[in-house]
C-alpha cells in the first residue's frame, strides 16, 4: 500500500519582492548603526548598538527565516537560547560587579 505524495510540504511562499524590501531595510539599519557609533552616548553606546542589531536580527528571523509563519512550539525553541544567554550573562553579572561587597566588613580590635 502506498501513500500518494500529493500534499505540499508547507503553503507559504514568500515573494522575492518582500525579501528585497527587507534587504534594503537591513542595509539602512547597518548604515544607522555605523552612524550611531560616531555619537558618543557613554554607557548607552552598547545599548543602542544592541537595539539596532536586534532589530536587524528580528527582520532576518521573521522574514528571511520564515519565522512569521511558524507555530508557537517552534517559537519557544527560537527564543529559548536567547533567554538562556540572558540568564547566563545576568548570572555572571550578579557576581563580578558586586564583588567589592566582600571587603565591607569591620574587624573587631
Amino acid at each position, binding site marked *: 500500500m502506498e501513500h500518494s505524495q500529493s500534499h505540499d510540504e508547507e503553503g507559504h511562499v514568500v515573494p522575492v519582492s518582500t525579501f528585497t524590501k527587507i534587504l534594503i531595510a537591513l542595509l539602512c539599519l547597518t548604515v544607522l548603526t555605523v552612524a550611531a557609533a560616531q555619537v558618543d552616548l557613554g554607557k548607552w553606546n552598547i545599548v543602542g548598538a544592541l537595539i539596532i542589531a536586534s532589530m536587524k536580527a528580528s527582520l532576518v528571523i521573521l522574514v528571511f527565516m520564515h519565522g512569521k509563519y511558524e507555530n508557537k512550539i517552534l517559537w519557544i525553541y527560537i527564543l529559548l537560547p536567547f533567554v538562556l544567554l540572558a540568564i547566563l550573562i545576568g548570572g555572571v553579572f*550578579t557576581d563580578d560587579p558586586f564583588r567589592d561587597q566582600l571587603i565591607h566588613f569591620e574587624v573587631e580590635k
Partner: protein
Amino acid sequence: MSAHADTHGEVNYLNWKTGIWSWLTSTDHKRICFLYLYSIMIFFISGGIAALLMRTELATVGPTIINDPHTYNILFTMHGVFMIFLFVVPGIPATLGNFLIPLMIGAKDVAFPRLNLFSFYLYVIGAVIGGIAMLNPVDTGWTFYATYSTTTESSVSLMVFAAFILGFSSILTGLNFIVTIHQLRAPGLTWMRLPVFIWASYATAIIQTVATPVVGMTLLLVIAERMFGAGIFDPTKGGDPVLMEHLFWFYSHPVVYIMVLPAFGVVGEIIPVFSRKPLFGYKLVVISSMLIAAVGFVVWAHHMFVAGISDFSAKLFSFVTFLVAVPTAIKVFNWVSTMYKGSISFATPMLYAMGFVFLFMVAGTTGIYLAMLGVDVYYHDTYFVVAHFHYTIQGGAVIGLIAALHFWFPKMTGKMYNETASKTAFALLFFGFNLTFIPQFILGMDGMPRRYYDYPPQYESLHTLSTVGAFINGFGYMFALVNLAWTAKFGKVKAPRNPYNSVSLEWQTASPPIHENFEEIPVVDEDPYGYGTPTGNHA
C-alpha cells in the same frame, strides 16, 4: 553478537538480522539501545574499579595501596569523568530512552534514525579520545577548573576535547528525542496522554540540547587557553578564573537533571503498575518535570558559594536553589500517594523504585542543607557533599537505570529473570550503598575534606566502614547486572507480551518487538494509567 538467541521461532528485532556487522550498522533504536548499554557498562565498571581503589586506599590511615597523592588525584578524576560523561549522562536516555520512546508513542523509530547511530559513534570516538588521554593521565578532577587545568602538564586538552565530542553525542540525541516526541506520536496520543517517562525524557532532551553547547564551548576555551595563552581565565592576564566556573556550572548543574529526570520517569512508570493504581496527580507530575528542567537552569552558582563570588550573587542563588526542591518534592508526594491504598506487590522493579524514593529523599534533604549559605560555607568540599551527590546520582539515576533494566527486561529480551537472584542483588547493593555513604555524611560533618588521599587518625573508623560498604555495593551491582546479562543470553523462561498488565503502548506489542515495532500503528483512546478504574480495563 547473536547473543540473545532462543526466541522460540518468532522473528523479532534481535534475530531478524544477525552478525556483529548488522548490529554495528543498525539504525534500529532498539539495537542502538544495546550498543550504548554495553558501552556504558564498560565505563560503569571502570569507574567503579577506580572508586574501589580509592576506597581501599582510604580504608586505613597513611598510604595503603597508593603511595602518592598525584595517583589518587588521577583516580578521582577518572572516576568522575567515566561515571559522569561516559556512564550516567548517556545513562537512561541513550539506553532505555532509545528503546522505549518510539514504542511508547507508537512510532516505528525515532525521527532521525541515522543521526541516532551517528550519536552513538560520536560517543565511541569521545571514549577513544578519552582513552588516549589516559596515557598522560589528568588529575584536575572532572571539573577541570582553571587555572590548574589551563596550565598543568597532563593531557587536559585531549581529555576535554573527548568531553566535547561526548557532549555532541548528547546534544544530537536530545535533539532527536525532542523531534520524535513532537512529530511521531500515534493518532489519539495527545500530550496529556503520554506516559510520564516520555515527559521526563522530553524535559531531559531539552536540557541535553540547550545546556550542553555551553560546556562544549567552555572546554574549547580551556584548550584555547592552553594552546594560545588566551588569558580570559587567567588573573595574571586580566582574566577571571571564576568565569570558567560560571560557564562550567551553567551546564553542570542542569546535567544533574539530565541524569535524574529520566529516573523520575522510570519510577513514575513502575510505581502505578505495582500498586495497581493510577499515578496520582498526573498533571502535577508533568508540570513538575518541566519545572525542574526550567528552574535547574538558574541555580548553578550554588556550586561556587566559596569560590569568591559576590555576596549578592551567593544570596540570590541560594534563594533560587531552595525553589528547585519544590517540584521534586511534588513528585515524591505523588509517588507515595499512588502507593497509598494500592495493591502493592514487591517485585524487583518495585523494590528498586521504593528504594529510589527513600534514597532520593535523603539526597534532596541534604541538598537543602547545602543550599543554605552559612551551612555550605562549612560543608563545601567536605565528604558531606560527596555523600549528597552520591545519593542523588547513584541512589537516584543509577538505581533508576537498574530498575528500568529489570522492569523492561521482558520487553527487551522476551525473557524473565530469576526474582530471587535479582532481589538478593538489590538487598546487597541497597545495604552496601547506605553503609558506604552514611558514614560519609558524618565524616563531612566532622570536617573531612573531599579529594584528599589521607587523613588524621580520628577519621579512620568511619572510612573503614565506608570502604566495607563500597565493596558490598559493588558486589551487589555486579550480581544484579550479571544476573540480567546471563538471563538475556542463556535464560529459558519466556516472557509474555504484557506480564504486568500495563496499559501503555510498549506493552501492546510483542516481547521482544518486531523490527518495525508494531504490526499496525495503534490508535490511542485512553489514559496511560487506567489501573482499577472504570475507564481502565485492567484490574
